C-alpha cells in the first residue's frame, strides 16, 4: 500500500501541536485529508455493522477488556483495509519520532466503541508490560497476535514459542465516525496531573472530535482516562512498545505498572 512508504499525501496538514500540560502530549484536529478520512469512516462502518457482542470475540467488537466499559477489537496482522495505515512502518516511525523514543516495531492496534452512558474509566498511565511472540516481517512491524500469546499475561500457545516482554511506550487515540461533538456530550479523554485525581476532575480534556488525534509517551506521569459520554464514541487506539530497559534507564527501577485484574 502506498501509505506504507509515505504519509505525506494522506495528511491534511502538518501543523500538529505538542502540549506540555499536564504532561507532554500531541494533538491534531485535522489528521487526514477528507477523501482518506472518508475511507477510514467507511471501513469503520463495515466493522460496526457486523454488530456488537457481549461475550469476548476477537473477530468482532466485543466486551474484551476486563473492567473497561467499552467494546473493543484488535486488528489481526492480516488486516489490510484502510485502517491498516495505523499498523504501517511509516505510522510507527512517525509516532515514535514525535516523542524521540526508540520503539521496537511491536504494535497493538484496534478500535473501541463506547455506547452512550459508558462508565468512566480510571486514572492510569499506560506504562504497562506487554508480551509478543516475534515473527519475521519485511518491515519489522510485529502486530499483536492474541491467539498465540497473551498480550498482558505472556502465556503462549503452541510449542517452541517464546514470549518477549516489552513495555508500552507511545499511546495514540484517533477519533472517527462520531456524532458532531458539543460541550456537554462527554466522551473526552481526561488528562491528569496526579494518579489520585478524581476521574471526573481532569486537568485537561481532549474531546473526541472526528479526524482528530491524541498521542503521548507512556511515562510514570502520563495519567489519563476515558470520561463518561452522552453520545456514542468511536476511536482507533494503538500502542507502540519499547524494551523495558529503556524505562529503567530513563525513570529508574519499578516504574512499569504490572497488570491487575479489574472488575467492572
Amino acid at each position, binding site marked *: 500500500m502506498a501509505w506504507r512508504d509515505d504519509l505525506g499525501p494522506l*495528511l491534511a496538514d502538518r*501543523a500538529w501541536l505538542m502540549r506540555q500540560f499536564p504532561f507532554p502530549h*500531541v494533538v*491534531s484536529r485535522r489528521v487526514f485529508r477528507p477523501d482518506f478520512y472518508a475511507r477510514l469512516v467507511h471501513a469503520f462502518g463495515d466493522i460496526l455493522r457486523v454488530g456488537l457482542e457481549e461475550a469476548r470475540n476477537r473477530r468482532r467488537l466485543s466486551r474484551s477488556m476486563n473492567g473497561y466499559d467499552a467494546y473493543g477489537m484488535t486488528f489481526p496482522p492480516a488486516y489490510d483495509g484502510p485502517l491498516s495505515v495505523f499498523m504501517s512502518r511509516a505510522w510507527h516511525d512517525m509516532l515514535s*519520532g514525535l516523542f524521540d523514543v526508540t520503539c521496537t516495531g511491536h504494535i497493538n492496534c484496534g478500535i473501541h466503541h463506547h455506547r452512550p452512558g459508558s462508565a468512566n474509566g480510571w486514572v492510569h498511565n499506560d506504562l504497562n508490560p506487554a508480551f509478543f511472540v516475534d515473527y519475521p516481517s519485511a518491515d519489522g512491524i510485529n502486530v499483536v497476535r492474541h491467539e498465540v500469546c497473551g498480550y498482558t499475561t505472556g502465556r503462549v500457545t503452541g510449542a517452541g514459542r517464546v514470549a518477549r516482554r516489552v513495555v508500552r511506550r507511545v499511546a495514540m487515540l484517533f477519533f472517527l465516525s462520531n456524532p458532531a461533538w458539543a*460541550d456537554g456530550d462527554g466522551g*473526552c479523554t481526561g488528562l491528569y496531573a496526579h494518579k489520585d485525581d478524581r476521574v471526573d476532575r481532569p486537568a485537561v480534556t481532549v474531546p473526541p472530535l472526528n479526524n482528530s488525534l491524541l498521542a503521548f509517551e507512556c511515562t510514570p506521569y502520563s495519567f489519563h482516562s476515558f470520561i463518561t459520554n452522552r453520545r456514542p464514541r468511536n476511536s482507533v487506539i494503538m500502542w507502540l512498545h519499547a524494551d523495558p530497559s529503556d524505562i529503567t534507564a530513563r525513570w529508574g527501577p519499578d516504574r512499569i505498572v504490572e497488570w491487575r485484574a479489574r472488575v467492572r
Partner: protein
Amino acid sequence: MASARSIVGKRVCLFTGASGTLGTAFCRMFRTRYDIAAVFATRLPAVVSQLSRPIDPLNPAASTADSDAVFAIQADLLDEREIRRVVELTLARFGRIDLLVNAAAYSCWGSALETNEVVASAGRQFDLNVVVPLKLAVCVARDFWRDRSEENRFAGRNVVNVSSTAGAYVYADSTQLVYSATKAALNHLSCHLAEEFRPLGVRVNALAPNTFPAIVPTEAVARGIHQLDRQTTATGQILVMDNGGQVFFRPD
C-alpha cells in the same frame, strides 16, 4: 501610567471561552493582529500558546518558533478569585487590556418539566453567561480602565459580550428557555454597562449571532467581534448576525 502615544504593537485581547468553536476561530484568525490572553476551562485552546508548540509529524525536529502564540490561562471563572487572577495575569503579561471578549458560556437545553437538569443548572447558566461577564468587565475596569479615560478613548477600548439571537427573539423551541433568558439578560446588561462605562471612554456592545456554524459561519462571527472592536463610536448596541445578514439593534 502609559500615555496614548506610548501604546504600540498589537491590541491586547482578553478572550474567555477560548477553546470553544468561536474562540478557536478567533484565535486562529486574529492572533497576528492581537496579543490574546486565551482563557479556557479544561480544553486547551487549539492554537499555539506557551503551553502548545507546533510540531510537524514528518519533521518533528524542525524549528517551531511562533511569535504570535496566544497566552493561555486556565481558570474556573465561577470562582471569583480566578476572575481576579485572569485579569492580573493578562496585565502582567501584556501591560494593558484593549478588548475584553466574554465568550465563555454554558447551556443546558431541555424541558423544564420533563427533566431536573434544566432547572438545576439554571443558576450555573446565569452565573457563567451573565454574572461572569459582568464581574470580568468590572474587574478590568477597576484594575486598569477606570483612571485612564483619555487613553481608553484613544485606544478604542471596549467590551464585546457574545450573546445570541436566542436572547433577542423567542423561538418556538422551548427547550432553550433558560439559555435564551441568560442571553436576553446579557443583552440588557451590555446596554446598561455601556452607560456606566461611558465616562471611562470604554464602549460595551453585545454580539448576537444565530447558531454557528450551522446558520452563520463561525468565521463571520469571529469577524463580527473584530468589527465591533474596530467601531469607534458604537456602544450599547447589539449586533445581530443571522442568515440574512447583520443589523444593529438596541432594546429601547
